[in-house]
């Protein structure tokens, strides 16, 4: 509810405000919903003046309607697809992370969600040369691991540092700090990183369920409302600033025993694309399987196996590999001195 204040619009002066308050009209919504003729009589002001005030307030506070064609044009020019660096994941995501959308990775502990996030951040910072914002809520992010991944891409110290500088990290552990950080990024008061600048193309939140899940359940409503605020902030970033958002989530067991993403039904419509990561029972330690469980572009339930060590593949074929990946590994090995 937006309260009526003096000077909000031309024509809304002290006198008018006082008479409106006397008639029990305190907010913009009250003014707009009431009958203007009736109100003009009660407050003894001219109908025309009141109508003009109503029109200005309405124009100030409503959302601006956009034609579908204009929206389409705008999206065509601003949408980009960011490759994750792993061809199997790219295949699942229909060639990569789309800006303007929220992609979710869910999986149990140890299923590789954070590793995938690191790999994506490094790939975007080094190969695509775009800034990445990484919000860590679990404490699992270490610069050492990012550097390790970068060292397999290039041996040039300057290039490594340059890529690391493009990854802006935030470490927070509760939902209010997360909301503060997100709103700060939207308004541009963050530490040097501002989404409005245009060079930030990806936002990774690992993990969003760690800060929201403890608030859900029981009789409190605040948890759901905070979850909704986080969802709205992420969507605003994605759509208004053309950023690809990647979030991670935990899993719970459904009634029939299968794994399903956490945070319940109310969160399920927030991400546009959802991928479930699982360990592969047989096979090497780095193998994971990814299943597409929600997508607007591809048929669901496509499964792809991939290697977590893809992003650090020049480290050698320790335990990983098998299948088509070896050729990729060998190629990179040759370029190492």
């Amino acid at each position, binding site marked *: *509810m*937006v309260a009526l204040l003096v000077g909000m619009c031309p024509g809304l002066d002290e006198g008018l405000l006082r008479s409106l308050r006397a008639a029990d009209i305190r907010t*913009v*919504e009250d003014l*707009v*919903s009431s009958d203007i003729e009736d109100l003009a009589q009660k407050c003894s002001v001219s109908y025309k003046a009141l109508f003009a005030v109503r029109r200005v307030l*309405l*124009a100030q*506070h*409503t*959302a*601006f*309607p*956009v*034609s*579908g*064609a204009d*929206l*389409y044009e705008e*999206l065509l020019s601003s*949408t980009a697809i960011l490759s994750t660096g792993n061809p199997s994941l790219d295949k699942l995501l229909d060639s990569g992370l789309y800006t303007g959308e929220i992609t979710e990775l869910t999986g149990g502990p140890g299923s590789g969600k954070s590793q995938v996030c690191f790999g994506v951040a490094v790939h975007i910072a080094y190969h695509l040369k775009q800034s990445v914002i990484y919000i860590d809520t679990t404490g699992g992010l270490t610069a050492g691991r990012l550097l390790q991944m970068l060292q397999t891409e290039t041996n040039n110290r300057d290039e490594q540092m340059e890529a690391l500088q493009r990854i802006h990290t935030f470490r927070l552990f509760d939902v209010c700090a997360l909301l503060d950080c997100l709103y700060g990024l939207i308004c541009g008061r963050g530490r040097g990183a501002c989404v409005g600048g245009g060079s930030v193309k990806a936002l990774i939140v690992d993990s969003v369920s760690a800060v929201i899940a403890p608030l859900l359940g029981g009789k409190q*409503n*605040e948890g*759901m*409302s905070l*979850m*909704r*605020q986080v*969802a*709205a902030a992420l*969507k*605003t970033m*994605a*759509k208004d600033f053309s950023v690809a958002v990647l979030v991670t989530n935990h899993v719970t067991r459904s*009634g029939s025993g299968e794994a399903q993403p956490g945070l*319940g*039904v*109310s969160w*399920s*419509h*927030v991400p*546009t694309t959802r991928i479930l990561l699982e360990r592969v029972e047989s096979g090497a330690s780095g193998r994971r399987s990814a299943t597409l469980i*929600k997508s*607007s*572009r591809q*048929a*669901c*339930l496509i499964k792809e196996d991939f290697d977590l060590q893809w992003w650090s593949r020049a480290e050698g074929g320790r335990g990983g590999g098998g299948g088509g990946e070896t050729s990729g590994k060998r190629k990179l090995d040759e370029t190492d001195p």
Partner: protein
Amino acid sequence: MSESGTQLLARLEARRCLKDIEPQLFADDGGPDRGKTELLYHLLCRCVLPEAAGGLEVDVVFVDTDYSLDVFRLASVLDSRLSADGSAGSDDAVLRSCLSRLLVVRCSSSSELLLTLHFLETTLSSRPKAALLLIDSISAFYWSDRSEGGASVAKQEEKLSRCSELLGRLLRDYRITIFATCHPIRRTSSGPPSSSSEADRSHLCRAWQRLVTHRLVCSKQEAEHNPANGDQGSGEQRNRQVFTVHCSSWTGTKGSRVSSFRVTDGGVEFVWTHRPPPGLSVVL
């Protein structure tokens, strides 16, 4: 031309002119990923496509409350409908003229929604061709309203009841059709929807429930397995998720109808229509 699995599409077909449209308010319920958005796009396309391609050529206002409008998906559905028709091919100009009949408004809070609906009154009167209002979704601010309202239920539901009253007025004065989607708050067990969907009673305020005249409940059916047709050399089975829509209405005579649809690249494709038993008279 899609088989009108639900007669409401046949209804819409009959009403082109604003004056002739009987005011109806449809609420589209269903769990996540149950095809509700696809149904909305299907209706949208049906309305904005030119008459040559089987559309109604009316203006549509889309109120987006949770940033869920996927313009690319909409454009691809329109494109496939236009090219399936064969007449214009994939003509860019035709696509853009269809899209220009769509007006998108994004709201980020329930007060903004209320004020925007007031604003839409003037828009509707200046655009006589606007015949359809789509709201996706009306339940988006449920939790924010609840926490803002504090302990009093009346305060929690205040904004939504005001929106409902306003929508009721728009229905009467401008004689438009309104479709709204609603996300459930509990995970419902997947199973055939019962004919008396008391368990699925809407969790929104009473003013809204009174306004709704038809309710479409979407749910997922067991995935069908289509054998590989040979067009995919790998022999992979493409699972096509089949959704059922259970439409119940309570204006005039009560009735209900069940249909199934499948989501394809070209949008929604109705599979079969289940005729209700002869005892019930079908409304719509």
